[in-house]
């Protein structure tokens, strides 16, 4: 809520519609990209990049993160850091095995 005036809100409706359109387009782009003949590594990164852009749009506009309070951003920053650790450290540990 954070003190949106009526005008502000009307303006943001336009933004929401824009975000919606971008999300729809990006969805199609992802699917199209998956038919490209890419190596699995490239395909993965491309898909993740598109998904992250979409995710940022949702979180930034729909969830108002772009204008959110620092406390919340700090909590999410912390979470994000731990998320990255959780996602990749086990995997790095796995490939660093001397034997498989």
């Amino acid at each position: 809520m954070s003190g949106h005036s009526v005008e502000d809100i009307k303006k943001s409706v336009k933004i929401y519609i824009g975000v919606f359109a971008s999300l729809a387009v990006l969805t199609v782009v992802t699917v199209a990209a998956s038919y490209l003949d890419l190596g699995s590594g490239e395909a993965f990164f491309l898909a993740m990049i598109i998904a992250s852009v979409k995710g940022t749009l949702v979180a930034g506009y729909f969830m108002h993160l772009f204008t959110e309070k620092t406390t919340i951003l700090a909590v999410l920053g912390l979470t994000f850091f731990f998320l990255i650790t959780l996602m990749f450290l086990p995997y790095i540990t796995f490939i660093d095995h001397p034997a498989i």
Partner: protein
Amino acid sequence: MSGHTDTHHEESFWRKYIFSIDHKVIGIQYGITALVFLLFGFTLMMLMRWQLAYPEQPMPWFGWLFGEEGIMLPEVYNSLGAMHGTIMIFLGVVPLAVGAFGNYFVPLQIGAPDMAFPKLNMSSYWCYLAGGIVMMFGFFVPGGAANSGWTSYPPLSDIATTGQTVWLFGMVLLITSSLLGSVNTITTIVQLRAKGLTWMRLPFFVWTQFITGFLLLLAFPPLEAAGVLQLMDRLAGTSFFLPSGLVVSGELLDVSGGGSPLLWQHLFWFLAHPEVYVLILPAMGIVGEILANNTRKPLWGYKSIVYASSFLGFMSFVVWAHHMFMTGMGSTISAFFQTTTMIISIPSVVILTAMFISLWGGSIRYNTAMLFALGFLPMFGIGGLTGLPLGIAASDIHLHDTYYVIGHFHYVVAPGTIFALFAGIYYWFPKMTGKVLNERLGKIHFWTSMIFINGIFAPMFIQGLAGISRRLWDGGISYAHATDTFYLNEMMSTSAWLLGLAQIPFIINLIISLKSGEKANDNHWEATTLEWTDAPSPPLPHRNFEVIPEVHRGPYEYSVPGSDKGFIPQSEA
């Protein structure tokens, strides 16, 4: 905030004591349930210690419960061991430290009328109780309760008896409860601090609860995920944790394969390492409060311990694989985890050092609460110091999964955390009930506990150095390398039973003091924090304070030069 004395209509017994949404009632519910579970978890261990001291000799009195001819069966031993660990940690200590003390005293210490979400608070308790009951149900299913250790490593746990499924369901409920609780604690601390209560004026206890809240919030969900995966393995026949080509008792296991046992270990320890700091941080918080109060001087280096605790909480997320050095870890990644483990020991050193230095120049009152708090310091010291060689992969080669590890962590959780919790009970009982616990019984409780608990755990280091593995049904008697140190088992077991007896004065104390103990005044210990200075004993139902206090200074303004009273309450203008 309103000055009305009576805004409440009479509530039914159920609303008031059972389905209450008052944080104080919920705190007490948590406390009683957790104490019962602690006693139960301890009882399991007292039974197991018979088997360790006198392997394969029939147990007197209760033997028939656990196997033919009164000899406890190995599978029963494993069940009791796994349940002891689970109960002590998830049903005993955490609910007592966070659910009971956190719930009861965080709002009081920050000058809030209740937790931010009272209904959530109530559901968190009921989830916990449901989780506990489901866990207990495990004892009655075929094959008995979960028997793969509290760590539940697959493939063993994947192919274990039904008890493991029950355990997983119980865990899912307990995790849910913790998540609800931690959302509540953090929101309460951020949002409901009284006017003037800035971050650096928070009592240290509140800080520790705040950090603990984050550990629970962010570390538990991966275990919930892992629990779901293990449930799938057990119930839907998937093989998240099962590689291809397993042969169990001569039969090729009929699963698709392709999973990895190590995946579970990562997800489990991602929780379980932060979890151990969940066990210790609130304990440090309680000890901090009591030290300041009974030395009659401020905690030394308040800011540094706050920073150290926060750093400890942060680092605890990146050390987990020090439990997994022996899983064939490469040199790069083990270097990383060894380094983080060494780094994480530093904030503990900082905190302990600050606490020791706080004693200097104090005017120490030796009441029971203080004795337990003081006992905590060297005991945690022993436990923490013995964690260091475990954190180095090279020395962990010899010590991993031996009784050295058991000794290490019991020193931190039993004479460490449990003592701190006892200290908390003696310290805050007058506030919660309006009655003071009997000091004489308290001192008996302290000294006997102190002696016997060391009698149990100190010899474990010796056995661990000798290389005796943990989780052995016969205590390792048949191994050659146990020859020289096996005899210690008898003494350890005896100490454990005596420690059990030593709890009797405590239980009696709780009962008789509640009934006919000395009346406590509102600020029984002449403390400075809000729960003592602004709330009656016991605090007012449903709103804690007559008037929400305003805060003007730091938490431990004892013996301020120039003030004749000897202490200045936080709320004094």
